[in-house]
């Protein structure tokens, strides 16, 4: 007991120091983003820092590059891996005794990838070039683990933004991200002095969301409907039941300072552009590569490759974001919370897993947390706040980017708990609320 309270105290002391660091750095970095960063968050006994009343259990560990995650109506968890573990690319995790930890773990599937979702007795999984599905029996066991149906094959993957994040609507459609094989559509990618291409040829076959039939095997890339365009890369996406629309999180462009040192200093380059949430409809255009969103000026700014100077606005035909977050935080998971377990303010709001930045160097890295945005009637109804923090292990590991864990996938369980994956070590946390 004594030991416990001492431990607890030191965690508190650490946390105080942590808040001070944040304060110090944001003060001199002129960080104007309004963030309820520390208020109300408390350390959990496995290292995560959560709001009062929430508790995280380590549901599973050691899965390696655990990407997206899906939970069935009876609480069976499936995780997609970006690197095979013991030759398997999907893991089925079951907690048979209800202690918050998976005790029945089986692997199947010989391909790596990111996408994972479950609907109507099927598990959907994506590689970087295809979407498959597996039939589940009435106990959510995979019927034929070695022979999934090919739903879509031949998707484009050119080595950059190749992860195929997927989600489904409730009318039998499958939405697939085809990321841009480019940072900002220069003639020579990521090369100083190379001009932007207008029209950008990447937009014809990538940098958007493609829509397929969820229950029709044998579709090819060409069968897809080009649903939305001007999205550089989307990893976090979810269907919003309140609005009956698709919401996505875009990974904004990199390297403003590297490519245009005369226009952007390293600090501006670390903060810009915003990571944006968009609500999509058939035909939506979010503006990449011609513009990016500046959350300080609250404007769509002409990209420097296309003649921009950090102030000129453009993209009148492009949508505005639903909400904008600081640059380079890498949103990899999006979940609209529909459960009843969490306090009322969380209902229908958005959880976003931020993988954490790399493109803020030489400034300090940032992210490695799960944030929450309250929603009312399908629109944000307040500021975003950090919900679960310290995945990195410490403020120093956040700053250096050498995070111990990087949040990636999010899913909601039937009891209203949420699950978070980490694609550095392959930890899966289950976060519950218990007054």
């Amino acid at each position, binding site marked *: 007991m004594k030991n416990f309270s001492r431990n607890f105290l030191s965690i508190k002391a650490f946390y105080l120091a942590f808040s001070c660091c944040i304060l110090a750095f944001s*003060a*001199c970095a002129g960080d104007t983003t309004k963030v309820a960063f520390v208020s109300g968050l408390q350390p959990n006994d496995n290292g995560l820092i959560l709001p009062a009343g929430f508790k995280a259990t380590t549901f599973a560990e050691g899965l390696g590059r655990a990407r997206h995650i899906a939970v069935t109506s009876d609480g069976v968890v499936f995780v997609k891996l970006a690197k095979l573990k013991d030759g398997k690319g999907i893991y089925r995790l079951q907690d048979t005794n209800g202690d918050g930890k998976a005790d029945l773990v089986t692997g199947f599937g010989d391909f790596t990838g990111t996408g994972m979702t479950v609907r109507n007795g099927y598990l959907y999984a994506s590689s970087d070039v295809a979407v498959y599905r597996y039939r589940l029996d009435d106990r959510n066991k995979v019927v034929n683990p070695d022979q999934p149906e090919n739903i879509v094959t031949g998707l484009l993957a050119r080595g950059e933004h190749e992860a195929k994040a997927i989600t489904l609507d409730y009318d039998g459609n499958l939405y697939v991200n085809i990321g841009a094989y480019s940072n900002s559509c220069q003639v020579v990618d990521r*090369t*100083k002095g190379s001009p932007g291409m207008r029209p950008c040829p990447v937009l014809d076959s990538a940098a958007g969301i493609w829509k397929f039939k969820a229950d029709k095997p044998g579709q090819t890339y060409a069968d897809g409907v080009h649903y939305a365009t001007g999205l550089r890369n989307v990893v976090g996406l979810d269907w919003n039941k309140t609005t009956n629309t698709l919401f996505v999180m875009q990974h904004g462009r990199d390297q403003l300072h590297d490519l245009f040192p005369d226009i952007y200093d390293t600090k501006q380059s670390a903060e810009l552009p915003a990571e944006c949430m968009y609500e999509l409809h058939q035909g939506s255009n979010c503006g990449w590569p011609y513009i990016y969103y500046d959350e300080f000026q609250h404007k769509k700014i002409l990209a420097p490759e296309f003649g921009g100077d950090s102030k000129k606005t453009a993209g009148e035909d492009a949508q505005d974001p639903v909400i904008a977050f600081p640059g380079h935080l890498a949103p990899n998971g999006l979940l609209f919370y529909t459960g009843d377990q969490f306090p009322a303010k969380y209902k229908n709001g958005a959880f976003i897993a931020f993988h954490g930045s790399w493109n803020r*160097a*030489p400034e300090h890295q940032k992210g490695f947390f799960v944030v929450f945005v309250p929603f009312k009637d399908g629109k944000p109804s307040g500021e975003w706040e950090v919900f679960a923090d310290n995945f990195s292990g410490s403020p120093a590991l956040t700053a250096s980017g050498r995070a111990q864990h990087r949040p990636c996938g999010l899913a909601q369980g039937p009891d209203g708990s949420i699950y978070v994956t980490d694609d550095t070590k392959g930890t899966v946390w289950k976060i519950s609320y218990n007054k």
Partner: protein
Amino acid sequence: MTKTLGISFSAILLIVACGLLSLTNKSFPPIQKNGPVQNVSGLKVSIERGKKVYAEQCLSCHQVDALGVSGMTPPLVKTKWVLGDKTTLVQIVLKGLTGEIEIDGDTFHNVMAPHSELTDQQIADVLTYVRNSFGNKARAISAAEVKVIRAKTK
């Protein structure tokens, strides 16, 4: 008590942090185009200049500690490219690199842009710096060597 402690603590941190930030924000002096790099003090000078080239040209992708970014950008620590054949290494900087590469079972597939606009001396310096930092130990590369490799790379 805790409150005052916290406040003074953050004040100190603020000062330290701002100091650090202003240090990293300092602009770099221009790099000399020519200069001997073969002798020991020449090596030191080349490493010094190379450090600045690294900060401006490589750091944002390969990171401050040269350990790269998992799944995207490879480390520059004891890889076969960094420690290996000079021609291949110089050509990676001149022409860039795309496609998937594997280092210790981890794959990387982001894009490394060409850096052919750097002078022979800058390339020699940055590679000499990388080959003698971050736990690496390998022979220096001279501007003359880069010049020869550049000529046959075109």
